[in-house]
């Protein structure tokens, strides 16, 4: 059993295939909550959950405000909301302005998760076309959490991963397969 209590993954719409691969590899009884903050097309609300659910053995949930964060579930930030983690392992949602042209903004999810989970959080940044997530990953590192970025050579668009590597001294640069192996080893 690992020391970590939660995993948070950020990426943009282009990382959908990687996310699907990761999600598909996790067993039904995976012992940690996995939170996904992905840039999505603003006005397409449904479809994403359904598409991920087909591949996933863990339940995929778009959380409501104040839902408790539970192990063995995959949470997807709802379209058109920022997704925060509150002390006491609960979600909070917000319709504040877009940040980094994004809502959900990966930075905000990571800031709040880092504040809540501190050194018990694993933060992962995948392929993406803007720098959202870089400062968020730095906050994970600064709080003592573990930071991973997808290998930029493997990314369709490496802006997000490179910005993250510039922002902080990330712990691991992993291929998708290595990310999966790492996550499975936490179980």
């Amino acid at each position: 059993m690992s020391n970590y209590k939660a995993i948070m993954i950020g990426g943009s719409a282009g990382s959908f295939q990687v996310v699907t691969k990761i999600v598909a590899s996790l067993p039904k009884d995976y012992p940690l909550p996995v939170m996904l903050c992905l840039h999505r097309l603003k006005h397409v609300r449904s479809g994403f959950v359904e598409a991920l659910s087909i591949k996933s053995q863990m339940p995929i949930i778009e959380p409501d405000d104040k839902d408790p964060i539970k192990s063995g579930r995959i949470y997807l930030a709802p379209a058109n909301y920022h997704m925060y983690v509150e002390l006491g392992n609960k979600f909070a949602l917000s319709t504040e302005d877009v940040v980094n042209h994004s809502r959900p903004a990966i930075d905000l999810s990571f800031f709040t998760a880092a504040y809540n989970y501190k050194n018990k959080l694993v933060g992962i940044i995948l392929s993406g076309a803007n720098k959202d997530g870089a400062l968020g990953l730095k906050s994970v590192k600064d709080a003592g959490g573990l930071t991973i970025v997808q290998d930029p050579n493997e990314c369709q668009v490496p802006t997000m991963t490179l910005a993250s590597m510039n922002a902080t001294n990330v712990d691991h640069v992993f291929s998708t397969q290595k990310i999966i192996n790492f996550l499975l080893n936490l179980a």
Partner: protein
Amino acid sequence: MVTNEDVQRFINSIQAASTYDFTDYSERSFKRRVEKLLVDNGIDLNQLTYKLSKDKVFLEKVVRDITVNTTELFRDPEMWITLRYQILPKLKKNKSIFIWHAGCSSGQEIYSMLILLNEMGMLDQAKVFATDINSEMLEKSKAGVYKYRFNLGYLDNFDKVIRENPYNFEEKFDVPYEKYFDIDKVKDTITMKQFLREKAVFRKHDLVKDGNIFYSKFDLILCRNVIIYFNNNLQNRVIDLFGNSLYRDGFLILGAHESILGQASNSFDRTKGFYKKKQF
């Protein structure tokens, strides 16, 4: 980094100098807003609390800054489709339909409702009331002018809710945008038509301390993406207020990812997308 104690000091200084009480606001969003306030004003917390205690105009501005929420025309089209095909038809036979937009922010939800009511031939019987804690947002609501380019998504939402019929793809409604708003691409504005702008009644209202300030109950209350900023305690109080302000069988619509938790949920039947007040 703003700490919980900082937030508490900020809340106390506002409370001491005004009638606003943010004690029961949800911690996370509030903390972020205080951080933003400090950055935007280029001051630290001591300077902020001092200024709040001395300067009423500044305090009002701060309250306006921290209570802004964004919205859009027909935000969450699925909800508006539910209103159009499931909820509003049930109210059509009423002589009057009382509607309260609680926490109307910049007003797009009101105009969405008025447009939908007009399309359904129900505008004349509707009495529409709109409230917000933020006087600046109320003025924006009344003005009914929005940025065009930034809000191109409004038109997609309009199409989904007003022009298409998801229950019968053959049936399309040819509703020109100009029927409801003028688009000025040079000025970059969308301006709501006057007959919509003069329809709703606007009042400043604080959900924390003000009850039902209108002389009526309501058939439909919309309060979307407001209670996400409240803690459970305040959420329950506000839901009670809505319960007491609804007619029997009245409808309450919350944001797409908000739900009624705890005891307050006993007063409502939940159907996907909306709550209906139970009969007692």
